[in-house]
């Protein structure tokens, strides 16, 4: 029972770090997926004095993924009710050309600014409507959400690291005597610290597999999937290979660092 309790303290600490890490990954992926969704519905309107070639517009900035010339028919229809046919034809020729520019991804406000200035380098383009106010609000909201989650994850990691350091003191006290006695009989450093490293690695493996189980269960849970589909995104909540390797790597690194610190801080008493 005592042994399980000793294992649990490090396993729980490691689990909370892994949990923060995975939550950060999920939020990051969700925001990226949401940005792609926004990019497909977001567009910029460019107004030109004369007809422009789609390929020329595409060359202006690589963020532009698609160009669609907007038909002026609806405007003309509204204005033409009291006009003669010849005047309508004249109006058609004099009306500026409208282009809807679809972007490859959801841009930052800086990228929009850059795109606008690139578009204005073409003398024919007289106006660009970027709907920047709506865009800025959405983008800033996403950034705020990401930053709040990152900050929360960071706080959890910092608090957990402090807890781990407290745990480290207990481990140091527990293992110091055994390491000293082994040293008195000439045990090499690797032999003296073998038990410690074995414990640390076992705890890291337990924490990693527990995290794997928890996230795998949540990622395959219909309620979780439904929540994501409700906001129109589909992401890998937990990638069983890549995410597990990251989790395993982080927890083993933390445990080995912990054990190494104990070995480094070990003072032989006789």
């Amino acid at each position: 029972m005592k042994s399980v309790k000793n294992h649990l303290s490090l396993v729980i600490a490691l689990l909370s770090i892994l949990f923060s890490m995975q939550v950060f990954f999920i939020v990051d992926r969700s925001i990226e997926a949401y940005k792609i969704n926004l990019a497909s519905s977001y567009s910029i309107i460019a107004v030109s004095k004369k007809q422009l070639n789609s390929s020329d517009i595409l060359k202006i900035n690589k963020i532009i993924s698609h160009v669609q010339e907007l038909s002026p028919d609806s405007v003309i229809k509204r204005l033409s009710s009291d006009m003669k046919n010849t005047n309508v034809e004249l109006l058609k020729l004099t009306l500026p050309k409208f282009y809807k520019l679809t972007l490859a991804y959801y841009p930052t406000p800086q990228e929009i600014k850059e795109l606008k200035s690139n578009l204005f380098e073409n003398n024919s383009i007289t106006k660009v409507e970027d709907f920047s106010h709506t865009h800025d609000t959405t983008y800033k909201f996403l950034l705020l959400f990401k930053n709040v989650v990152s900050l929360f994850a960071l706080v959890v990691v910092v608090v957990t690291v402090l807890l781990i350091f407290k745990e480290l003191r207990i481990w140091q006290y527990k293992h110091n005597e055994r390491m000293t006695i082994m040293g008195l009989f000439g045990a090499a450093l690797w032999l003296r610290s073998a038990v410690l490293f074995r414990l640390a690695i076992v705890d890291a493996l337990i924490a990693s597999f527990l995290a794997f189980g928890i996230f795998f269960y949540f990622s395959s849970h219909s309620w979780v999937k439904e929540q994501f589909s409700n906001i129109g995104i589909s992401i890998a909540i937990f990638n069983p290979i890549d995410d597990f390797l990251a989790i395993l790597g982080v927890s083993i690194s933390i445990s080995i660092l912990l054990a190494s610190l104990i070995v480094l801080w070990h003072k032989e008493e006789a």
Partner: protein
Amino acid sequence: MNKVIIAKDLSLSYSSNETIINKANFSISSGNFVFITGASGSGKSTLLKSLFGALKPKQGSLVVGGVELNGVSRSKLNLLRRHIGIVFQDYKLIKEWTIDKNIMLPLLINGYMKSVANAQVDKLLKHVRLNHQSGKYPLELSGGEQQRVAMARALSHNPILILADEPTGNLDDYSSQLIWNLLEGANSQLKTTVIVVTHHIPKNISVEYKHFHIEYGSINEIR
């Protein structure tokens, strides 16, 4: 006779302003049984600590088993310690390990095969009359029994040198006698050099012994 320990102008201290052993010169030959006596705080245990490298000489030279301990590297010290058996007054047993594993410790460090180590542990447990306690943990044993385990551990790897720091200090007569018998046996039968720090030399000791007395920082050979 080969010298196991040679000290020349040896000074020992824990801090720069206080010298506990001052420029001592002595030597101990292989197979000697040596008692080191002195008043409390005279430096007996300090000298013993220096013999297994837990305290580095402040000045002078201290050679143990052919290894100069002044400035010795950790790896060389480890190699030397593998040929020394140490018995402490507070036993220094690993509490989370069974007594069998505690006795086996020097054998495992010296790379003995598990089967050989197990056989040696069985033999030693009988020798210290604790075979009925096999598999128990140190804290389940009395102080005298724990010291007998520590004694068995010190003997397990047939060391060239046994260092004992007041090994019978807290023990009952039965355990004390058993410890003295084991130390005498190791010295007379295996020709192991034995150095014992003690307040009182037992009256019924049956082996030839040397006696050093520490007083005011100097080590005097009395016998």
